[in-house]
């Protein structure tokens, strides 16, 4: 069958090509489309029946006609060739080189859709990753095998934050940091601008990890349909690095909103019933297929830690993409426009941020004994300080009680000293926690009810006397 070319195109629109009279094409089959200029495009069967076969074309259907379009069904699913040489290379969304070097040749290739990990085979992530960023390490701790997205908005420095995490991430082992010889990075960019792509490239180069990065890029002016396959291709590569080559893989995916928009485009073309904001009802399942490929597997040394960047259209956290992402991922880091405007960098809004896997990755033997309580106290005190602030905005700061004034001071110090840090500033977890005590000590001891008496005896006084 693979040698036959069909020219029975029935219609073409919005990245979809319908073919008549193709016997027995399997769902998910890869196809090669040749247009009237002899150029090749690749695609995949997304619906198949005896009468009509529907193909999505990753390069789009622009410039195709029905009469001079030839389609070859390869009789195999979409697969990616895998070899250790993927590191240091740059590919497009379907896994073809974009760096002018030859394609990867390997006996090993895998279906890019992967297969679900048996939950009984997963190992629960609990190894603390030190990112050197206080708001993450101290309050929204990242662990190996976690999926922790960055929720951002247009114009906010999510790329800089992601790059800083990539530069500084390291494992803390019994209080000592570990070198990362077994570390790899998979960078998946969908719909990003040329300048953003360059920013990341320079950032990897500068931190000397370029040889450890496999990059998959679909730029803003590349065909959008390709974004549908790109994260699957990138994660297939990540799974290979993690579970075949035993590496600890950090996957940065940006921007998932563009991915979802491409999915919406195809869904509309197919006539799928829309659920919210025109996105198809299966957006949740589709995103889950991508995000759930992160994790650890019992008996395997490697891991996949996933940091997707999700931009929130109009800063709306209830938009379907961030909303559904939040239901699948293990927490989120939310960036705030107000903090960015107040020149707090990185502008992490800690209150809506969360790391669900934090509780098992911190504490005695992993970070420090008081970590959980300190984090809880910071959240509670800062939430209280926000209430005081809104009160001050109405009745004026002069009218506040003395205790409330101390909350205002705390909030200032928290934002300017704890949240704010340089792009090159790599704080250890102990520095982060000491800093937390420093700002918490601006509050009266009685207000710190989430800390134990022992913590307060050991650390509170100390911070004041310093």
């Amino acid at each position, binding site marked *: 069958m693979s040698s036959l070319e069909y020219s029975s195109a029935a219609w073409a629109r919005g990245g979809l090509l319908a073919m008549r009279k193709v016997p*027995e*094409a*399997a*769902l998910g089959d890869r196809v090669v489309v040749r247009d009237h200029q002899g150029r090749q495009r690749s695609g995949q069967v*997304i*619906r*198949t*029946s005896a009468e009509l076969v529907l193909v999505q074309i990753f390069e789009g259907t622009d410039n195709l006609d029905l009469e001079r379009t030839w389609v070859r069904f390869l009789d195999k*699913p979409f697969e990616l060739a895998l070899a250790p040489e993927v590191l240091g290379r740059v590919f497009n969304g379907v896994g073809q080189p974009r760096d002018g070097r030859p394609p990867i040749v390997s006996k090993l290739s895998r*279906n890019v*859709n992967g*297969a*679900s*990990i*048996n*939950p*009984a*085979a*997963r*190992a*629960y992530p609990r190894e603390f990753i030190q990112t050197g960023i206080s708001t993450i390490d101290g309050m929204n701790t990242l662990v190996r095998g*976690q999926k922790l997205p960055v929720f951002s908005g247009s114009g906010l420095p999510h790329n800089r934050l992601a790059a800083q995490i990539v530069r500084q991430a390291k494992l803390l082992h019994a209080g000592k940091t570990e070198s990362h010889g077994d570390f790899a990075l998979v960078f998946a960019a969908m719909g990003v601008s040329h300048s953003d792509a360059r920013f990341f490239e320079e950032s990897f180069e500068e931190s000397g990890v370029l040889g450890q990065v496999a990059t998959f890029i679909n730029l803003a002016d590349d065909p959008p349909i390709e974004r549908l396959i790109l994260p699957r291709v990138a994660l297939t590569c990540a799974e290979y690095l993690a579970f075949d080559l035993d590496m600890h893989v950090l996957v940065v995916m940006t921007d998932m909103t563009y991915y979802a928009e491409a999915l919406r485009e195809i869904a509309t073309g197919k006539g*799928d*019933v*829309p*659920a*919210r904001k025109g996105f198809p*009802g*299966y957006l*949740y*399942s589709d995103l*889950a*297929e991508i*995000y*759930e*490929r992160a*994790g650890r*597997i*019992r008996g*395997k040394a490697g891991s996949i830690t996933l940091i997707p960047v999700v931009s929130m259209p109009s800063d709306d956290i*209830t*938009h379907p993409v961030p*909303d559904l992402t*939040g239901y699948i991922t*293990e*927490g*989120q880091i939310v960036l705030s426009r107000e903090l960015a405007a107040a020149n707090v960098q990185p502008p992490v809004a800690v*209150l*809506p941020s*969360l790391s669900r896997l934090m*509780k*098992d990755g911190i504490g005695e033997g992993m970070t420090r004994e008081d970590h959980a309580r300190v984090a809880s106290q910071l*959240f509670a005190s800062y*939430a209280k300080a926000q209430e005081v602030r*809104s*009160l001050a905005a109405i*009745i004026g700061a002069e009218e506040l*009680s003395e205790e409330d004034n101390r909350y205002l001071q705390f909030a200032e110090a928290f934002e300017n000293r704890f949240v704010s840090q340089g792009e090159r500033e790599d704080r250890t977890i102990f520095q982060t926690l000491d800093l937390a005590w420093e700002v918490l000590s601006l509050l009266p001891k*009685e207000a710190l*009810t989430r800390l134990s008496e022992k913590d307060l005896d050991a650390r509170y006084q100390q911070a004041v006397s310093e």
Partner: protein
Amino acid sequence: MSGQGSILDIQGPIVVAQLPNARTGEQVKLGKLGLMGEVIAREDARAVVQVYENTEGLRPGEPATAMGEPLSVELGPGILGGIFDGLQRPLESMLEQTGERIERGLVIPAIDRAKKWPFVPQAELKVGARIGGGAILGSVQENATITHHILVPPEIAGELIDLVAAGDYTVDDVVGRVRDRQGHIHKLHLSSRWPVRLPRPFNKRDHAVQPLITGQRIMDTFFPLLKGGKGAIPGPFGAGKTVLQQQIARWSDAQIVIYVGCGERGNELTEVLDTFPQLTDPRSGRPLMERTLLVANTSNMPVVAREVSVYVGMTLAEYFRDQGFDVVMVADSTSRWAEALREVAGRLGQMPVEEGYPAYLGSTLAAFYERAGRVETLSGGHGSVTLIGAVSPPGGDFSEPVTSHTKDIIQTFWALSKDLADARHYPAVDWLESFSLFVDTAARWWHENVSEDWLQLRNKSLRLLTEAEELNRIVNLVGVEALSSQQRWTLESARLIREGLLQQSALEAKDSFCSPEKQYLLLSLMIDIYNRGAEILKLGMPVQELLRLPLLAKARRWKIAYASDELEGLKQEARDIVPLFDALRAEYASPTSQRSKSEGTES
């Protein structure tokens, strides 16, 4: 009885096949891979099949086989402590057979066929006796916690013509035979099958009478649920639904807990799988897994199996109910199940009504929740299924279809709030949005078993919380100085109730489970402090001084200072309050302090 046909059309999880005579609901095996699905519609000679597994690689023209039976679960000894996927396949066996990734077309029985169980026939049951469906044939001590009753399948009744002696049998061995009215002879086994979409029969529904004790103060004390009741936990992401559900699964005083992870995170299920075997039941001291059964369908597993998983869980729950147990079924999350319905409806091109959901969403949800309840079983005993569903409203909007339909059906509503969660007030149950229709029934239990004034104290504390909410609105407009001393004390007492009582840490060993006695002691202590403080304010004590009492900071830590079996300490604290306030009263009631107070106000 199986019919043969061939595949015509494949679109995602929906396959159309030429299959005359197939019935809706019937199982269908598809293609060379042998993927399983079920018929959801018939059109002429075609059957529309929803497939439980990923359909990639399937081709038109491949065979389709109707299997003659609807999707059924296997019931019998050996299912407790099990971890199943949405189709009741044991995940551990799948791991052994095919490795860490789930392969397609895998058929693995839910119960070990070779294992022998010690069966003891019911003593009073004699050969020749007439027995009906649901009667108890005998029992198997499945583990130290649970005695598994072997029931006559509900559809069989007649004369018992055979019953084996006590001994060890596999689930496939014949342990008895029944001759029905028509003279047909039915063999009875330790295991039986039941179709998941058909509710198991019972004699009649009965009143729910006893509160389900979850050990969570906001639930037991404020918004109780009865054994046999229906509850929902709606909340946006990050509000703590999963932690709360896990707390219920861990600590509730049900005899059997069925936890259905429906479309949720893989790592979360792994956490359950990792931690539950290490936990012990606070009442029996036995491993929690002995009374627990997990159904796990993670979000990346095929969507149709997700839709099925809640029915699999419910049928398992009903099976234990029929043995006379109080069962809690926790479904996390029913929204994912509803979305699976929507996804299939969308693929079939059904007309959407609200947010893409099909018109039958409300009736499907209601029919499912109605399978919960306390019943008189076929054998005359009592059993119950308590159903607690998590709901994940998009954007935390409770007016969306799944939440609003669910709210109409359930009796206890624990509304989670993003604002509370952001302030790390856990469990983030919003006391203004939540409700329970069971407070009066629960009060009867509390009055009989704990204390007579439970309802009064509970209502008092809720009133304080509501008043504080009003006062906070004023404070936000004009500042706290505008309030009277009494009002400021109300505000402070409400804060004390929030932090010292409502907030409960799942991570603190002494706080994670809170016995009814401890709940009551804490509640009465908080109200006692409020009353005594209010009284002294009337005598003229400046409110600032009252707010400075170290007692207030200390009271917030009582919940973590004393475990449920260290209540003597808490009682001592209650006694210590008396002299403290007596001293204050003496100070302000004396004429000299009256004078100093009036001077103070003048200056």
